[in-house]
């Protein structure tokens, strides 16, 4: 069974850290479909965090389709992470490279690009926004 860790200095919200650790475990093959995640009580006993945080992480994972909660039995992995299609990845890599080239030609330096990227990233991937 997976054992969660908590990094209090990373600035990442606790529930997100739990979600990310489940993702990493799935990618590394440490978790497979059918495995049971620790109960909220077990996580709390180990990490001394708010049980709502654990439940929120599990709900997020359930929304992502990775786990399913069976009442009275626990929360189980339902499938492994979808690997993104390499073709899709290379398509976006291409459009990103083109964009960077034109930005550089327009006179934007690395810090400008970084600032623009972060602003766009935040508004796109901020919680609750599609």
């Amino acid at each position, binding site marked *: 069974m997976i054992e969660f860790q*908590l990094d*209090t200095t990373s*600035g990442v*919200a*606790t529930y997100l850290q739990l979600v990310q650790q489940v993702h990493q475990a799935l990618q590394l093959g440490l978790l497979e479909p059918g495995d049971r995640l620790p109960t*909220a*009580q077990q996580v*709390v*006993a180990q*990490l*001394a*965090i*708010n*049980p*709502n*945080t654990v439940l929120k992480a599990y709900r997020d994972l359930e929304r992502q389709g990775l786990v399913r909660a069976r009442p009275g039995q626990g929360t189980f992995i339902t499938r492994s992470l979808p690997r993104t299609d390499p073709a899709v990845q290379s398509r976006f890599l291409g459009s990103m490279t083109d964009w960077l080239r034109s930005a550089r030609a327009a006179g934007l330096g690395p810090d400008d690009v970084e*600032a*623009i990227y*972060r*602003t766009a990233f*935040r*508004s796109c991937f*901020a*919680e609750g926004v599609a």
Partner: protein
Amino acid sequence: MSFVIEARGLGKQYGRRWALRDCTLALPAGRVVGLVGPNGAGKTTLLHLTVGLLAPTSGSIRVLGTPPAEGPEQLGRVGFVAQDTPVYARLSVAQHLRMGAWLNPSWDRQIAESRIEKLDLDPRQRAGTLSGGQRAQLALTLAIAKRPECLILDEPVASLDPLARREFLRSLMEVVAAQGMSVVLSSHLIADLERVCDYLVVLAGSRVQVAGEVSELLASHHRLSGARRDASSLPASQEVIEESHTDKQSTFLVRTSDPVHDPAWTVRPVTLDDLVIAYMSRPAACERAHQPQLKVMS
């Protein structure tokens, strides 16, 4: 949504001094609420008002829908752990549990005794000879064994060493996971609160400075750095919480529900630590600027 504590214009005055003023809160049930503030800000006053140890001078407060300490049933639904966890020094641990059983109809002996056993406390030991951490655990046992719907704790870990502190919080979170009660926990140590709280109230200068879900607060506060400019030049939707200036640069901590797109700013997220400190410094900053203090409602 049901609320565990609702306060409207709550205030408590001692002679000329207001220990708490204009306190309006609606704390949702099922959360672990952190109450932060410097010493003397009114945390203990607010919590004592919540459990009926004090009566308000102005305004009103309702806990689980009724005024505090209204009768034995209401008292049975709220558990309280006071600052410095007072216990009867001459009575033993077991005698404290008997007190709990005699004075609380909803007392669950099973919970109480299994907790004492798990904590490795000697039932015959006098409470006055327990260590600080053990006393805190005893006080917590007394508060939760009557199966309350809501648990109020006044700086329970302030005088404990780091290990005892972690153990206490772990114990508390296990109880919350098992019994599902609402918790209101006051502290001036922010690091502890980050782990366990999902709702935050900052008290400073005897007033509520901010109150809201931790995730929502972190998402809506940003630190903006850029060229030197005045706070009034910022759009109205961005409320300035804290500002600092050098001759060329200004940094603002703002609260806004809209995303910040202005390329003139470098936008950084705010940690809970910074957020709390900014709100805690607000009364002093407002006094210096002679500005009327705006209260933030979530």
